[in-house]
């Protein structure tokens, strides 16, 4: 806005730099309610989303836009692609897929989970790496012995799969039961953890 402007020889600002600066300022100003990023994994691309409280959603490939729209409605539309907030989650997931990490320690945000589902998922989170429980076991252990179906529903709507290991719940009798990410992924995860025999 001065006479210097007539000899403005500086390079034009690059859009990615300008956006990165905006993102930093949004986060510093407490305006970034939900940060997300995508990462590759052996079971396909994953979408990771976190609030300031912690990891709030993990989604498998194929529905990232749907997931973001849903997060906009259920949490806040102040959603930005901001990988920095998810660095720790990505590191833990990478280590998990390399077989080097058995227990996740990143903070979780449970705000998408209702009261009953929370009980189910808390119980599920205590199933050790390499082990499985049945839907009935989980139902009994949270005091609803006839609630196996409700448990199945709660697991099916787990917003933080892998990290909250709903894949460790299988049918009595050895069949796998369902999985929100598809049975191939459930098989992969249980095989990785050694709960299933590797079939070559």
């Amino acid at each position: 806005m001065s006479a210097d402007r007539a000899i403005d020889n500086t390079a034009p600002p690059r859009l990615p730099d300008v956006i990165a600066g905006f993102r930093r300022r949004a986060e510093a100003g407490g305006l970034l309610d939900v940060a997300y990023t995508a990462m590759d994994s052996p079971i396909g691309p994953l979408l990771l989303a976190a609030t300031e409280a912690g990891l709030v959603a993990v989604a498998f490939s194929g529905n990232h836009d749907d997931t973001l729209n849903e997060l906009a409605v259920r949490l806040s539309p102040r959603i930005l692609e901001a990988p920095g907030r998810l660095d720790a989650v990505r590191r833990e997931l990478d280590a998990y897929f390399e077989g080097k990490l058995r227990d996740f320690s990143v903070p979780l945000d449970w705000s998408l989970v209702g009261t009953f589902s929370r009980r189910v998922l808390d119980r599920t989170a205590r199933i050790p790496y390499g082990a499985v429980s049945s839907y009935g076991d989980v139902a009994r252990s949270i005091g609803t012995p006839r609630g196996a179906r409700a448990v199945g529903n709660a697991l099916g709507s787990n917003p933080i799969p892998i990290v909250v290991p709903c894949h460790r719940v299988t049918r009595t009798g050895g069949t796998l039961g369902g999985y929100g990410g598809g049975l191939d992924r459930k098989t992969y995860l249980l095989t990785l953890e050694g709960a299933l025999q590797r079939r070559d």
Partner: protein
Amino acid sequence: MTMPAGEHRPRGAGLPPFQALLDDHADVVLRFLIARVGHVEAEDCFQETFLAALRAYPRLRDTANLRGWLLTIARNKVTDAHRDAQRRPMLSDELDTASAAPPEPAGREVWDEVKRLPAKQRNAVALRFAEDRSYDDIARTMATTPEAARRNVHEGIKKLRRGQR
């Protein structure tokens, strides 16, 4: 991922994730700001624009014209920047040709012509056609009357037509 149904009434229902506004409109907003304030100030104005938008976003009711909404904020930030520089709330006379990018690539030749117009006409034409502002709006931004705004646009267009022949 299927999420359980929420019990509370979500705020901002129906608004797309803010990232979509960046993906769709950041480019246009940045080029607009470069044209209006130059390379050095455009970055800061851009960030101020999107921070203000992000702050207000959950309360936004009308999502029909998000680009127009962002450009309105951007224009206000330009006005603020000018005011900060102890200037009248209108555009600089010193827009250099190198930094003034046209708002749309398709209109490159026309906007090159626009840049050669006298300041008042150039600003009025830019506000009218790059931003689709009303004459009342243009008058407010340029601290003039709607009639003067209309005249500036009219004179600018006349010159452009003449120049093209």
